[in-house]
């Protein structure tokens, strides 16, 4: 099969975003709606009978949803939202595992012109509450268990939160409603709201070094990038069986776990269960997956199980394998080539970019350890801050910030209610990613690290401040510094250094108590995996804890400039 992007230089030279937009249908009057491009246009084109989603439950059983099924179900959901008074621009949140209702809610929300914000179900109550408060959540779709454990205690504190829809309650508890009851009563006919390309469609949260999580705003126009990058970077052909293993609670799981595969009319696999090597190989073989998009953490866990389980499977249908989330180390690329007979293609992007920006393509040699080259339509560079502003760094292999020229369709349009933080991302005509990288003489980019204290664990960004704040709430804690420490499987793990209040003794039992305290508030995805006690943490004159120094010492690296150090670690 010929790669869609068969000649990188040629396609790049002739590419225009207008031409990419023309691959979509649009709605009358210049309107554009992601859900129309993902579902209804395929039904109109006679593809309604094709399987859009094959959902595999934890028990191994499956349910198929055709494009026509999904179109009708999302129409019902849109009608439900409208009957509840949801208007275009209102924010609809989900807190769900990978169940069919999540996918129906996402696209149904877009149909009614509202904004969809998916949250990872492994978040604890505090990250959930913070994200819903910042985004003025009007509706939450969740399960009975998640609601009871993570939301019920504080729901009254959010003034905008009008409706909670429970997917699995026969008799909903007070203040909630049964989604299935509402769906049964709703019509399967709905005229998609004619959203403008610049109307807000998706809200994805990400973490910074300081302050609250940031809600990156994406608009309906982003679908132009979702669609074309699905073709160029993932090589999606219409007859592909595609499996993106990411959870929609993270941006990858929405852009490439919902939107791109559906706009490209492929059949996509959704697995409800968490990672399990044998199960994953079974899915690849049985479902005849042809394009697979996964993450370095998963690949490294598969490596641990060895190549033999791969070789015992018939994976002859598997044509293209891609990876995202953090740099894929060269060993993992080599292992992929050895075990699967083909390499993993690493690519790079972030919540703010909305879609893949830099990639290794089917038509190009993979340089193991490199993130590849910019997509057609994307200008990327390594820049340095100098006295005269931001300038491009001399090539090759100078470390600087990875920067992009603004203007691609899936670029974030703002951090919700945080104009100042948004504007800080753009300097001298560049979007600054916050990632440090290098570019080699062939134009391939190489990831180096983060330019700030944000922790990258299993491909997800964790803000140290969010973790520190939760630990500070414990009565025994005087101060906290949180860093990421290298881990060969997940990249970095969250480690907290804690100084206790005077008179409190550091014991193993207290360590577990703090761990439990953090997990209860933050959930397993954000909570620290390790806690170490100190008598005092290194601080500047202004009292700011020097995370950088904690990290240098933890890793045995040079301490660097410590002229601002006032009160040292003990």
């Amino acid at each position, binding site marked *: 099969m010929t790669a869609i992007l068969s000649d990188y230089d040629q396609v790049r030279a002739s590419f225009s975003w207008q031409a990419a937009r023309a691959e979509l249908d649009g709605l009358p009057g210049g309107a554009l709606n992601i859900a129309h491009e993902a579902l209804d246009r395929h039904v109109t084109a006679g593809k309604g009978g094709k399987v859009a989603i094959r959902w595999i439950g934890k028990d191994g059983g499956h349910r198929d949803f055709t494009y026509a099924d999904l179109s009708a179900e999302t129409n019902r959901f849109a009608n439900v939202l409208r009957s509840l008074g949801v208007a275009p621009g209102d924010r609809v949140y989900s807190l769900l595992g990978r169940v069919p209702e999540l996918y129906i809610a996402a696209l149904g929300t877009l149909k009614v012109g509202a904004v969809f914000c998916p949250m990872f179900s*492994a978040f604890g109550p505090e990250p959930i509450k913070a994200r819903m408060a910042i985004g003025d959540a009007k509706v939450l779709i969740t399960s009975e268990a998640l609601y009871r454990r993570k939301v019920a205690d504080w729901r009254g504190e959010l003034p905008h939160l009008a409706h909670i829809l429970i997917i699995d309650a026969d008799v909903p508890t007070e203040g909630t409603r049964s989604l299935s009851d509402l769906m049964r009563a709703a019509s399967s006919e709905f005229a998609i709201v004619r959203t403008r390309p610049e109307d807000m469609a998706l809200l994805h949260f990400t973490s910074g070094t300081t302050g609250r999580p940031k809600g990156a705003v994406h608009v309906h126009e982003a679908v132009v990038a979702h669609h074309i990058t699905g073709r160029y970077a993932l090589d999606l052909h219409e007859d592909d069986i595609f499996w993106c293993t990411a959870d929609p609670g993270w941006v990858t799981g929405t852009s490439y776990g919902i939107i791109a595969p559906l706009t490209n009319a492929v059949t996509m696999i959704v697995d409800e269960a968490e990672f399990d090597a044998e199960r994953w190989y079974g899915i690849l073989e049985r479902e005849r997956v042809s394009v697979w998009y996964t993450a370095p953490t998963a690949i490294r866990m598969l490596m641990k199980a060895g190549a033999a389980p791969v070789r015992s499977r018939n994976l002859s249908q598997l044509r293209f394998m891609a990876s995202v989330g953090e740099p894929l180390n060269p060993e993992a690329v080599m292992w992929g080539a050895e075990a699967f007979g083909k390499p993993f293609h690493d690519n790079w992007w972030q919540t703010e970019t909305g879609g893949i920006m830099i990639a290794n393509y089917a038509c190009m040699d993979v340089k193991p350890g490199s993130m590849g080259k910019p997509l057609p339509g994307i200008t990327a560079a390594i820049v340095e801050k100098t006295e005269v502003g931001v300038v491009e760094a001399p090539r090759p292999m100078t470390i600087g910030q990875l920067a992009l020229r603004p203007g691609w369709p899936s670029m974030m349009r703002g951090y919700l209610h945080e104009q100042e933080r948004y504007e800080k991302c753009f300097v001298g005509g560049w979007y600054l990613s916050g990632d440090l990288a290098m570019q080699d003489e062939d134009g391939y980019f190489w990831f180096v690290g983060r330019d700030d204290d944000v922790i990258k664990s*299993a491909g997800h960004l964790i803000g140290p401040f969010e973790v520190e704040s939760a630990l500070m709430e414990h009565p025994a804690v005087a101060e906290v510094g949180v860093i990421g420490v290298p881990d060969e*499987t997940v990249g970095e793990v969250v480690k907290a250094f804690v100084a206790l209040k005077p008179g409190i003794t550091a014991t193993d039992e207290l360590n577990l108590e703090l761990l439990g305290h953090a997990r209860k508030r933050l959930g397993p995805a954000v909570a620290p995996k390790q806690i170490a006690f100190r008598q005092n943490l290194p601080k500047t004159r202004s009292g700011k804890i020097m995370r950088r120094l904690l990290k240098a010492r933890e890793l045995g690296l040079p301490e660097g400039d410590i002229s601002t150090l006032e009160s040292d670690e003990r």
Partner: protein
Amino acid sequence: MNTLEADRILAEELRRIAPDVDATSVDRGGDLREEFDIDSMDFLNLVTALNKRLGIPIPDADYPRLGTYAGFVAYLSEKAG
């Protein structure tokens, strides 16, 4: 190892990873990761800790048997002789 002892050891190791969850109050036939709110990394750490403590190999291929608390206890008591 008898079931009671396997139960005690599993509960102890789980408590080191998820001290916020009381092993006596979970659904023993329910999804272990969900009941204890643990992620893939926590699960691997649990397996590593048990492997170290009991000196028994726990290969990936056996993970399907470790999906519930009850299944995990049965597996440990069988493997640890």
